[in-house]
């Protein structure tokens, strides 16, 4: 069916993904931009489908984004990101009774980490810790490989990390600051037991990716539709709230340099 419909891929990590993209599709149609979406169960298949040209645009996690960058030799087109995707951080949380006062104290301790494909709960915290002189081999790594394929979107492995910290046996653990702050805000963190040891440098999160071969008119139409979404518009706002942003932002690549370096270092490609 050759037409000018933009076909977008997204990963169904939660039931809300359907109303989000139904809403965005309706919005695009009102803007005169024909768009449809298909849902994948994991980012690996979504990336392969993008590279194979089955979909026009992929809404990618940072891990999927840098893989697309690498597989296209840096020629892929980055189209946009959420305001909330910028300056993400991870936290190293410790048990107060574990006797950990500095990063050096982590050596020999049990460090709980999230899924192997979670940027914020495993890949980047381990990378930044190594830069601080704490190699993964110097701690007892306790890994929670849950929802693999979803790249940490579900947050399940981060909750596992927090549980292992609350109940033991973990002495320390790594989670994204979003989970850490929101779990505290929900009253689910026992601050008598846990505290923050360290906050990592910032990094960027999700990105819309397309192949360099994508028709220029589709690129323009997509950007036009995307950036026409306004927080002030109640219909848009409902969708933006579900997707966790206030404003779509232009792309930037510098926020992924640390992840690229981490994957080189961890042979995580």
């Amino acid at each position, binding site marked *: 069916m050759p037409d000018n419909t933009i076909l977008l891929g997204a990963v169904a990590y939660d039931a809300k993904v359907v109303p989000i993209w139904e809403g965005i599709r309706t919005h695009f149609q009102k803007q005169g931009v024909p768009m449809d979406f298909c849902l994948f169960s994991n980012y690996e298949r979504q990336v392969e489908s993008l590279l194979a040209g089955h979909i026009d645009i992929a809404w990618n996690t940072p891990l999927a984004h840098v893989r697309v960058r690498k597989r296209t030799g840096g020629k892929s087109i980055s189209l946009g990101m959420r305001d*909330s995707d910028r300056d993400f951080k991870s936290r190293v949380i410790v048990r107060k009774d574990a006797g950990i006062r500095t990063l050096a104290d982590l050596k020999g301790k049990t460090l709980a980490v999230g899924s192997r494909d979670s940027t914020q709960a495993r890949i980047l915290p381990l990378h930044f810790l190594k830069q601080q002189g704490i190699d993964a081999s110097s701690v007892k790594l306790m890994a929670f490989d849950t929802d693999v394929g979803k790249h940490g979107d579900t947050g399940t492995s981060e909750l596992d990390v927090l549980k292992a910290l609350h109940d033991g046996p973990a002495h320390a653990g790594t989670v994204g*600051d979003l989970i*850490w*702050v*929101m*779990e*505290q805000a929900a009253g689910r963190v026992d601050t008598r037991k846990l505290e923050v040891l360290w906050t990592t440098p910032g990094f960027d999160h999700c990105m819309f990716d397309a192949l360099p071969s994508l028709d220029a008119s589709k690129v323009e139409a997509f950007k036009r539709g995307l950036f026409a979404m306004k927080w002030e518009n109640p219909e848009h706002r*409902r969708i933006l709230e579900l997707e966790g942003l206030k404003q779509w932002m232009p792309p930037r690549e510098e926020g992924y340099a640390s992840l690229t370096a981490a994957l080189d270092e961890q042979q995580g490609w």
Partner: protein
Amino acid sequence: MNHNNVSAAVAIDTGDLPFGGGMLALVRPALDLLQPGGVLAVLTRQASAPDDFSTWCKVEHHELIESDAQPGGLRLLLRKGGLGHARGTLEDGLNLAPVDGRLDAAAMLAQVPFPAHADPGTGFAPRGAMVEPGGPVYAFRINDLDHAAPPDVAELYDQAVAAQWNGERDIAWDKLKPLPRALQRAVGQIFTFLAENELSALYVPSRFIARLHPHYVEVGQFLSTQLMDEARHIDVFLKRARVGGGGVGISHATTSASLHSLLMLEDFTEAAFLLSVLGEGTFLDLLRYIEEHAPDEVTADIVRRARNDETRHVHFGMSHVKHALKHDPTMYARLEAAVRKRSATLAGVGGVPYAVQDSLTILAAGGTNPEAVSRGHNKFRELMDVMHTNRVKRLLNAGFTPTQAQTLSDLHTPNFM
């Protein structure tokens, strides 16, 4: 960045409280006091607070304007965002106090009056609550004061609560004596008929409670007392029909058709008019008749108690209808049309169901002696006149013209309810 021009409207000191260990329990209520754009100053001795608030503000769409060291800790300035800001203002300074140790619903309604219109988007939020946006729109259909709540509904609710009685203990069941067979049958039939009608009076209002906007909850509260009244009446009426060797009698198709037409009503005001003003109003005369001719004091006590309850229902119905008529004169035509429509659906049904008619005659006669039955028959005929006269009075009281009142009363169902 220089923020010297930013001044906080509210300032709080959270001491050593960790972000997730109590600090938010002070910060969030303080933010609730502000309108979007308002600034809150937070003093804290938690070094990680700027990081935590930076992320939290991003998610909650507040703005962390600055954090700087102060004597005694860090001072954070937060600007409240518009996301999730609950509509309205926090209730404050109500003058709600008990009188003589009692606190009634009318006193509360006086302090927190009904709104003219209610928004179905506020769901089950109690009247007066600030409502966080984004909740679902409920399918409430009675969202206007004019069609929902007469002004004295809270008083009626207070009266109803105070007047509740117990069908198990408050009736002197042990004083009931067996009656002669024919009279026993008549009593059984009459109470069967009463129970059947009261079942409809239980079902019909219940349909409207779930359609009523919760901001008019006093109406729902009153209706729930009405349901409790009907439940109790059904209970004691069926007990009376059966105790002392009697039994329930016949349910007539006329009764069934009449009550079915009540159950089909979709409009609250039409239902209040047909059920409470015309139906239960007519029932008051019927209950008085049964009390007057009751074969014993226990039976008289039962219908007297029921009549007291029904009087409140009629009062509510009258009050509701008069309130609606006052604000919407087109209601006259609508209510008349409702009576005519119901009458049309009941066309072809005979007069008062025969078993009811005969039982009321035997009851007034006190037995089957032909002379007494003749007197009983006259009493029954007088009852019809009394019912008509009192219906007309109620209709006139509601504001209908004498001609309308005569017509509407004539069109009323031969089933009484």
